[in-house]
């Protein structure tokens, strides 16, 4: 028990620590995370309120708790599946923990506890506001909702751990698996986002119910949750608790029992390859630098996904909006208005989504304890930064323009709007790229061991939040100007704002960037 608590403490503090020049290690990391969570909670409150309101207006309020539970479950499932690989089955962790005089069960319990606690954040964020709102309608939901919130996502976490292990195993075994897994992950993610979009754009809610009925077939315990929450058959709560306890007990027992075998299976021997003198190739120095970074990204499916996710969403958004608008019964006049609104919203939205897959905000962190190499080589710091910005712009350039062209065709953009949907996202990605680079230079996290620490690092979090807020403000300006004045004014003012922002950040980068890079101890 004592061992369990001290190891748990190490695991949790490790999660929140990051390099800080002022050496206030734990506090500042925790501060950033709390800030992030509070903002997420606010968003969740608004969304929950809106959804409940829509359900009430359609007289299907009783579907709301299950819908929320379904969203919480799927979020937990996706996140746990994506993270199990690096959090639970990291061999570095294993090498550090195994020689310690700890029981395997302690290690397993600590690992699973931290994992579960982290994954619970999603269901807490999504469900706590719903418990408050729906609890006012049906007080028994306060009890049944809390029980469901604690148990049902746990079952999802357990499921994703099993799947995550299988994926990790395949990943380590076959090089080709890396590509397949990446594609698989991206496919799961795309499908997931598409479903969420179709659901949220559906106006009368019936489709949402029917979509969730598929979920009922796949996960019968959602039906039990329904019975408990809506029909007040509280016996099902007991069943859910029992199911959660039994399945986690079973997983822990299996994990402990096959602990050694499991890690043995995960360990891979690299294939040896003989050196040929044709391997010696000369390249331009900047290409070589770019290649080095691309290799670092392509090495891990999680990073590829982080690198592409926003861009894929950017493609899905106009398509799914288009199809959900098809299912709406609106006349041609309304359709014109709808298209006009889309021309005003999409440039900012696409820019925001592409910029979400930012690379620069973890590009310095990605160097890890090998930062000394580039720092001791004769590379101009501005060339180095420029190369990071190019890599950052690359996917956004392809996906952003593709998404722009799709939008132009689907929503019949006029010439000026067409120019703006191509230009604005690109400029926004550049702006976000320079900003991300500065943030990462300020808050790097070197000496990480799992890729997860990169995505959870303060610089990545601060970046995604500020970038989203900036994009929303920009979209609002564009929308309001476009609606009340005209598109020319909207486009030119947004353009001026973006370019001014880019120039300002570039000036900061050229003045401070080199010093910031030198200040990172490595």
């Amino acid at each position, binding site marked *: 028990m004592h061992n369990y608590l001290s190891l748990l403490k190490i695991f949790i503090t490790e999660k929140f620590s990051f390099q800080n020049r002022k050496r206030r290690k734990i506090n500042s990391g925790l501060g950033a995370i709390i800030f992030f969570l509070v903002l997420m909670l606010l968003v969740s409150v608004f969304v929950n309120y809106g959804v409940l309101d829509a359900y009430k207006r359609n007289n299907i309020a009783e579907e709301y708790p299950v819908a929320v539970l379904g969203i919480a479950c799927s979020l937990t499932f996706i996140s746990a599946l994506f993270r199990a690989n690096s959090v639970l089955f990291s061999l570095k962790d294993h090498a550090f923990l195994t020689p310690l005089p700890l029981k395997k069960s302690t290690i397993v319990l600590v690992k699973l506890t931290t994992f579960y606690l982290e994954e619970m954040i999603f269901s807490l964020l999504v469900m706590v506001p719903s418990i408050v709102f729906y609890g006012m309608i049906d007080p028994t939901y306060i009890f049944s909702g809390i029980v469901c919130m604690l148990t049902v996502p746990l079952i999802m976490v357990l499921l994703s751990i099993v799947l995550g292990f299988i994926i990790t195993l395949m990943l380590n075994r076959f090089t080709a698996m890396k590509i397949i897994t990446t594609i698989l992950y991206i496919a799961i993610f795309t499908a997931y986002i598409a479903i969420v979009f179709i659901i949220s754009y559906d106006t009368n809610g019936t489709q949402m119910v029917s979509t969730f009925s598929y979920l009922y077939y796949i996960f019968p315990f959602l039906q039990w949750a329904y019975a408990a929450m809506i029909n007040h058959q509280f016996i099902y709560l007991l069943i859910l608790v029992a199911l959660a306890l039994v399945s986690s007990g079973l997983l822990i027992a299996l994990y402990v029992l096959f602990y050694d075998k499991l890690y043995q299976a995960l360990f891979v021997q690299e294939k040896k390859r003989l*050196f040929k003198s044709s391997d010696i190739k000369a390249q331009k*120095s900047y290409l070589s630098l770019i290649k080095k970074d691309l290799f670092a990204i392509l090495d891990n499916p999680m990073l590829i996904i982080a690198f592409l996710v926003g861009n894929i969403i950017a493609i899905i958004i106009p398509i799914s909006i288009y199809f959900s608008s098809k299912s709406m019964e609106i006349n041609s006049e309304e359709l014109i208005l709808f298209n006009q609104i889309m021309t005003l919203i999409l440039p900012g939205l696409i820019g925001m989504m592409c910029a979400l897959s930012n690379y620069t905000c973890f590009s310095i962190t990605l160097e890890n304890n090998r930062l000394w190499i580039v720092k001791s080589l004769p*590379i101009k710091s501005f060339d180095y930064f420029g190369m990071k910005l190019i890599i950052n712009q690359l996917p956004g350039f392809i996906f952003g323009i593709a998404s722009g062209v799709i939008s132009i065709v689907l929503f019949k953009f006029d010439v000026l709007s067409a120019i703006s949907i191509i230009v604005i996202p690109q400029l926004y990605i550049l702006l976000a790229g320079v900003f991300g680079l500065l943030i990462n230079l300020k808050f790097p996290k070197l000496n990480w061991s799992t890729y997860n620490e990169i995505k959870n690092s303060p610089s990545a979090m601060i970046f995604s939040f500020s970038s989203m807020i900036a994009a929303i403000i920009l979209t609002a300006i564009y929308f309001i100007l476009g609606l009340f004045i005209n598109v020319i004014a909207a486009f030119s003012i947004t353009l001026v704002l973006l370019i001014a922002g880019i120039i300002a950040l570039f000036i900061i980068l050229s003045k401070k960037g080199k*010093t910031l890079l*030198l200040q990172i101890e490595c």
Partner: protein
Amino acid sequence: MNSKYYDKYLCVTEKLLVSCKVTNCHDKLWSEVKFMLEIKNVSKRYKGGAFANKNITLEIQDGEIFGFIGPNGAGKSTLIKSIVGLHLFDEGEISLDGLTLKKDDVEFKKKIAYIPDNPDLYENLTGISYLNFIADIFNISKDERTQKIDSLASKFEIKNDLGNKIKTYSHGMKQKLSLVAAFMHNPKLLILDEPFVGLDPKASYIVKELMKDYVSKGNIIFFSSHVLEVVEKLCSHVAIIKKGEIVFNSKIQDITNNESLESFFLELTEHA
């Protein structure tokens, strides 16, 4: 010696070399130019800590192997990191033949090679792609790098491993790979932080021979070490650092005429 004169000479020869693309007489021409590493009043303090380097002044002439010794935590790695531009130092200036680190950092770094005490390399690259990367940065032609990699890698017996990923390398193999990378671009100043840790006897012998050969061409080697026997045999000069300050800096003969370096070191670092 007029340093301005040498600056000009350096500039002209460099331009000449680049424009003629003469690589054969590269070494010979450079050897006629005098180089000098100057460390002037360098102080470095880590955030929230005491001084790790305090007012350090060292002057190293070409053709010297300079040994830098001191107890653990004395500030050796800290000074070395300042010289190679890994971090900012609070005061002072470091220059290599008129090129100052604070102003002309890129030109400065073109003339140096550095190997840290812990060679963390790009684990997912193969040995050869790492060497290619370094050679690309230094603009080394394909023929030259083929020839260098051939001779150096065979010398260190890692040629057959170059096709493998660095993550499969042992500590010593990584050390050897970074040595190959360091010698590849003919640095004027070679800076090594504890280079003999983890090397097998044969490899350390080769490194020592390479080092001697290298300074005979007018280059400078600056290295820190805890192996005093090696320092005693190899170095022409030695400096001892203690708690961030230089407590001794002189020719090695000044010590070894009377006593062994080891007893001198122990005396010096224990008293005062």
